[in-house]
């Protein structure tokens, strides 16, 4: 017995092309997960550019390979919200905040300005590379 195929809504060649394009589109979404920052990267630009320096890019991934969260967010007193830590170079040179390690002993010293001040001009302070919910990704 032969079953009649249902009437096509689109011409079959067009349908095939459409399916191919959609599949490739979906596949490319999987291939390029997030064009952009690494998960947890923080941009610090409260005062950098106003002082003719590039914004600071703080990579969480790099630091958590070497330190547990509790070191910076416990011992060093970093608040867990981008932009809420009132640090400046005076305090850092004084050994506070980043200066606790970036002193030429634990990590590179503050005279390597460009290693931290490495961001594109115009970036706004906040956490990048994370999920865009109403919360931390937008801070």
């Amino acid at each position: 017995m032969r079953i009649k195929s249902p009437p096509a809504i689109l011409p079959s060649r067009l349908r095939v092309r459409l399916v191919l394009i959609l599949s490739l589109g979906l596949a490319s979404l999987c291939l390029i997960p997030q064009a952009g920052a690494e998960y947890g990267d923080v941009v610090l630009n409260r005062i950098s550019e106003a002082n003719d320096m590039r914004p600071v890019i703080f990579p969480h991934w790099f630091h958590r390979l070497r330190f547990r969260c509790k070191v910076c967010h416990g011992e060093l007193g970093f608040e867990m919200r981008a932009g809420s830590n009132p640090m400046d170079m005076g305090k850092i040179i004084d050994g506070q905040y980043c200066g606790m390690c970036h002193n030429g002993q634990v990590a590179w010293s503050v005279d390597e300005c460009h290693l931290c001040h490495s961001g594109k001009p115009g970036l706004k302070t906040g956490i990048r590379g994370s999920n865009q919910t109403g919360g931390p990704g937008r801070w």
Partner: protein
Amino acid sequence: MKLKSLVYPAALGLSFALLAAEPSWIPLAEDGLHDPESPAIKLLQEPAEALSRLPADNVGNKVSWIEALREQYIEPRTNIFPETKIEILDMDIIMENTGELPLVMFPHRPHTEWLDCKNCHDKIFVEKVDANPINMFAILSGQYCGQCHGAVAFPLTECNRCHSVPRSIFTGNPGVQPQPAAN
């Protein structure tokens, strides 16, 4: 007809191949944050160089940080000051107000391996069962668990990692569990 019979499996195959592809990390010069003109680009460590050696995950940094720590792929420092007290707490809490979703099992151990008690208590969570009106709206707007999960810890797309205990198999009482699960 013949073309179609080739196209469907090919497209499907391609999608699966790409889904199963090895995780990749974007080079610093192309991440949209670092200035490609900055002299730092040549000196800073690339994410792929460090993260590709660690146990894989499919979200966040594409790294299972818990496994990386447990299996000693990494040994991050616990303290800078010698007098800092390091506390690890092995205690699970079951939360039952999850609607129809599986119950939430919160394991203190992996959290205290990274964090200090005072990072959460009592600033984010009151140190008492049932004292915190946690809900997903608050979490999605960055409160409670959402302070870290969605920013630096695994993202809020991974429902089952927290909602991990099916209602049908849980026979105990919610709250502090007598025996922590092996985690």
